[in-house]
């Protein structure tokens, strides 16, 4: 049972990590906590659902179109709402993302209604791979693979591409970056597009794991946020580790201690851990210069 709990925990953790990844990319470049992340992903997933269900588009085309939609949605939010904020406070930004979350949630409810649906996904959530008695459903397995692959690609992207370096520069000092000829506005739009895209991947996987309905991302998003914080909010490997730890702890706690408190134990642990290491697992702690 222990091994199985850990394996299932890893599978869930991979979903958390994916969402955390989407949040972290934005936080890295613009220090915005995007509470609308979950609903952006949900909306993208609904678009995919409509393409598949109502227009019978083949899955790969539907996925591609959905990714395109997610990218546009990310850019739309950045350009139409966030960019309009003059000298925003951290709180103001949070409120903007929360407001956008409500709009998206309302829109999805208005367009598709509140019913639960099953998301047609080519990989089954019931068929399993069996490794020496440990079972993992195909979709869980592929979720882990996808999140690791995405993490790796992003890592390379940030480290070695020109755009990635520009994004890092924008994060560390936006004014200097602008002086150096980096078009920070474009970088920001790009960041939102990228984040929304990753969110859409996560949304489709989560919908395929369970069911598709407007509130489907509420719980995963909070856990993703928690995983991101655990990993330090700025570190890509950190989010992977954070997600995995969170998933495993949750499952072990649920399995051996109490199912009732399973969903809040994560937060208790995070608070405790943050008290010991306030900047998360893998982030450097900056001392403010006076």
């Amino acid at each position, binding site marked *: 049972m222990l091994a199985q709990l850990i394996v299932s925990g890893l*599978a869930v953790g991979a979903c958390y990590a994916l969402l955390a990844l989407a949040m972290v990319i934005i936080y890295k470049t613009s220090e915005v906590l995007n509470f609308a992340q979950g609903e952006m992903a949900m909306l993208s997933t609904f678009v995919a659902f409509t393409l598949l269900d109502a227009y019978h588009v083949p899955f790969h085309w539907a996925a591609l179109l959905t990714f395109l939609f997610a990218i546009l949605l990310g850019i739309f939010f950045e350009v139409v709402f966030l960019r309009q904020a003059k000298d925003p406070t951290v709180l103001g930004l949070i409120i903007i993302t929360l407001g956008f979350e409500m709009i998206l949630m309302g829109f999805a*409810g208005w367009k598709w209604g509140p019913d639960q649906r099953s998301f047609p996904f080519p990989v089954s959530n*019931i068929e399993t791979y069996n490794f020496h008695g440990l079972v993992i459903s195909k979709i869980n397995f592929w979720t882990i693979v996808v999140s690791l692959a995405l993490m790796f690609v992003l890592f390379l992207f940030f480290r070695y591409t020109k755009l990635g370096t520009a994004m890092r520069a924008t994060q560390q000092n936006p004014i200097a970056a602008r002086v150096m000829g980096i078009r920070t506005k474009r970088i920001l739009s790009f960041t939102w597009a990228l984040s929304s895209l990753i969110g859409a991947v996560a949304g489709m996987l989560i919908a395929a794991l369970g069911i598709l309905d407007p509130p489907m991302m509420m719980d995963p998003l909070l856990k993703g946020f928690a995983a991101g914080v655990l990993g330090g909010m700025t570190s890509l490997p950190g989010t992977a580790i954070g997600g995995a730890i969170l998933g495993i702890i949750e499952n072990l706690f649920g*399995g051996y201690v109490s*199912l009732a408190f399973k969903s809040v134990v994560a937060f208790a642990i995070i608070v405790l851990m943050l008290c010991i290491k306030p900047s998360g697992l893998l982030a450097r702690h900056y001392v403010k210069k006076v």
Partner: protein
Amino acid sequence: MVKKSLFLMSGLLFITLLWMVPLVSAQAVRGVTDTEILIGQWGPQTGPAAPWGAVARGTDLLVRIINEEGGIHGRKIKYFLRDDSYQPAKTKAIAKEFVEQIGVFAVVGGVGVACGMTARDYLMENKVPWYGPVTGVYNWITPIQKYLFALYPLYDDEAFNLTGYLYEKLGYKKIAMFYQNDDYGKQGVMGVERYLLKKKIKLVEKVSAEVTDRDLSTHALKLKNSGAEAVIMWTMPTHAALILAETAKIGYKPQWATSNTLSDSALMMQITKGLWAGMINSFFGELPDSNHPLMVKYREWHKKLAPQERWGVFYYAGIIFAEPFFEGVRRAGRNLTPETWVKAMETLKNWQGIGPPVTYGPPNTPMDRQGGKHVFYGKVRADGSVERLTDWIQITK
């Protein structure tokens, strides 16, 4: 500056507009005029509990059918549906709006225990008839309220009898329970445990899920490790779908059984990708494809009046929760007041629409205000249709 003042102006205009939402002045009997009867219902149309909102829209269909057929005693029904997002503070505001601003004759249905409980005393104090809260808990009948008639079969008794059916008729001795950790799920557990206590055995395992949980792999493992032959499930559709997928994943296939809350087999088959087949379900209303003459009629009207709605169980439950109310209105005659309505309701004896047979009486015991005392059992076939296993069975004495 211009942009900002425009923004502000439109904001102010909007707020004033909201203030002007039309009011209806009070009549001699609140909500009853020569030509109209006003009734209201709240239901979550937004937020996480929104799937339940279909009930309130189903009632709307029944109202339109009645109006199309000429109304009741020359009066048309005017129906007000308000969204409370499952937030009690809003429910109470809506109840006050119904009574004081719109001036309804009665409230019908209404989802949620906490939501309804904030409004119950207020409605009763103002002598507003309330028919059929959409939850099967004791809160509605204890203490006995003169103007409140409950319909929904009590979760507790339903679970008690479902366990009996599994234990006696189908011979399952190792029974586990999977429930949602709220008032609804807790009452299910109470009923199941009450039955097993009578037989002097225990649940082999009871596993609860929080309403917000979306990962049930641990729950599934616990159920599997218990080795139960049958699992009774007392959850909402989302958790039902998740737990079935998770147990299927680890190769655990017990006999599942569940409450009428999950009796929307078509929906459940769809969201569980077929795993719902074989489920033993209790039902408190006719099956969606039933040949019951009323069902045939309602389905025809549904196609005509509200084709955009799915003919799901939650939806036509809105009809079930309103039918006896309108029967009471009919029996009360042209002189409709809360008092005559209550008197008329108390004359219902084994009256049946598409729901369970309903009996009320003068309020001597709580059960005189509990209408739905029957369910029947069915088994879900592989194609999503339901094989009716029993006729209506009385579950509440």
